[in-house]
């Protein structure tokens, strides 16, 4: 009998009215695995990520994260589970514009348990933003904002990191930097599920799944896992 995955999805279906965003999707993600989800726009990959991240609920099917069935949790339980177990990284960064880098990281601590400035500072130093602690998001580049977002996602030591196109709004140099950070977290043992359109990034992951029209259409194990992104030329 296979060991239980960090994420187990069985028969997952999600409908919005008449629109079926996901249909009968089943897959597992092992602890420490890096899974990349690809597919064209509207294929259901972000919906998949939202359901695994307890931001949304399935219409049908069972979703188990870290051994807990999260398919039918109340909004309050989903919130609690999210802050204890999941770290979210967004394409749009979603930083609070009037809080500086340090405070944006501390905000996640505050909602989790208690804000700790020293710990938040360490998290920002680890993502290379030791000199940008008091900068507002508007004073940071896109890559720096995404690194603040990564520091915020990691600050409560989540069991799983979910990233929705984390480098979608970044230039090549920042993309490399962000992917380097995520690869490092993966090497440290984090389970990582990432949505991306970029096949180069997909090469970094352990496994790649493709969605199309709400269906899981293909799955590929990547033997080049742990490669690094190389700048062309």
């Amino acid at each position, binding site marked *: 009998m296979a060991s239980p995955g960090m994420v187990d999805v069985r028969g997952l279906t999600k409908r919005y009215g008449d629109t079926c965003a996901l249909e009968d999707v089943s897959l597992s993600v092992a602890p420490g695995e890096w899974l990349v989800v690809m597919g064209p726009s509207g294929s259901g990959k972000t919906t998949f990520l939202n359901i695994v991240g307890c931001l949304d609920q399935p219409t049908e099917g069972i979703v188990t994260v870290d051994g807990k069935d999260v398919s039918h949790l109340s909004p309050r339980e989903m919130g609690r589970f999210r802050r204890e177990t999941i770290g*979210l990284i967004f394409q749009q960064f979603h930083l609070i514009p009037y809080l500086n880098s340090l405070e944006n990281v501390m905000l996640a601590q505050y909602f989790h348990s208690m804000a700790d400035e020293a710990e938040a500072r360490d998290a920002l130093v680890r993502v290379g933003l030791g000199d940008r602690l008091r900068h507002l998001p508007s004073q940071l580049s896109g890559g720096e904002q995404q690194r603040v977002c990564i520091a915020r996602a990691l600050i409560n030591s989540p069991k799983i990191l979910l990233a929705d196109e984390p480098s979608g709004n970044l230039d090549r140099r920042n993309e490399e930097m962000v992917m380097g950070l995520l690869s490092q977290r993966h090497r440290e043992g984090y389970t990582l599920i990432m949505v991306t359109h970029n096949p180069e990034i997909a090469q970094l992951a352990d496994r790649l799944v493709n969605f199309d029209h709400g269906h899981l259409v293909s799955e590929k194990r990547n033997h080049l896992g742990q490669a690094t992104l190389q700048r062309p030329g």
Partner: protein
Amino acid sequence: MFLRLLKDALWRRKGRAAITLLCVVAGLTLAVALLSIAADVSEKMSRELRSYGANVALIPQSEEVTLEIGGVNYTPPSEAHYIDERELVKVKTIFWRNNILGLAPFLGSPVFLGPERRLVVLTGTWFDKELTLPVGATIRSTFAEQIKIREAIAFRAGVKSVAPWWKVTGQWPEEASLDTALVGATLARREGLRLGDILPLEYEGRRAQLRVVGLLTTGGLEDDQVIVPLPVAQRLLGLTYGVNRVMVSATVLPKEKLASDIRYKRPEDMTPKEYEKWYCSPVVEAVAKQLEEAIPGSQAQPILQVAQAEGAFLLKLEWLMVLITFFALLASSLGVMATVNTTVLERRKEIGLMKALGASNSQVAALFLAETGIIALLGGSLGFGLGAFLARILGEGVFGLAIATDLSLFLVALLLALAVSLVGSGLPLRQISRLEPVGLLRGQ
């Protein structure tokens, strides 16, 4: 972190916070002003209403039927009973003595005018006389206790204190004068009397020659009477110190203000404890009872139509104030609701992010509540100050009363302001609890 978020929310939305503050201040100003007035108005309006006439009549105690028409006793003096005017100073010995604003004795009788012996009504009274309760007099200090006073109590009595609407053209007669009179305007017109004329009056062989010093207009029966200082009437009617009616003006509260267990109970049906409670309440019946006890040979009759009309008026006034206060606070809450609602809409993306990071509804709601709470406390304080000022202006301008706002209302103002902000935040907070992070992060 919480304080940091709070400070930013208030600082960055100064305009919105200012509108919320304005809503709270407007509601609280009106509420504090009306509550201040309502707290003071019963007693002060009751005092004000006293200018519309006496509310207790004292008549001689008698088992015989007296013949009285239009307030004038037609019973022959030899057969009638009287109240001794010297006892009237004792109105200041009763428990509610400070509520007695005025009194005036009356002695009325038909007399003959001139050689044609036309019948006219003569009324003797005090116009503005000083009375003094001497040192050592006994006054009631509590229901069961009486004490002797160490300082004399002086006060003024007379028609000027119970009927301020009496209008005299010419002069008021001197209190001690024995040959001056006021003539009612109607009588003067009918008899062709003018200022300075001599009125020859006669009663059972006793005669008086009185000089008309003033023409009186009251709009009542006095317009057809001759009004004289009390000693003039007593001498003509052959009496010493007797009066046949005393009108007393006292500030009282409506019966509806009594405790419910004694409100509609007759004093004779009350337990001793209930009777004590009733006796020490400033309702017209209790004041009348005490006057009756204080003035020997008198029988007190509350003028119920006056007392009840006043009571009803004061209660309606209070209710009106409470209603206006309620609607002012409701309007204030709606204003707060509109601005908080707009703030929630503006910050929905931020709220979505907080929820995505695991914030509970109560954590997000606490931020909004603290924000409106701070505005409410500030608004409550400002509203208290402005309300006290408005109460003073309204009191002087509308009621002609000096109204002081009780400092204890400050706490009430703060609590009301918090209630306004809580009610105003209710619906927006409900909206917060319904916001789903997934939609908000997508910008939906």
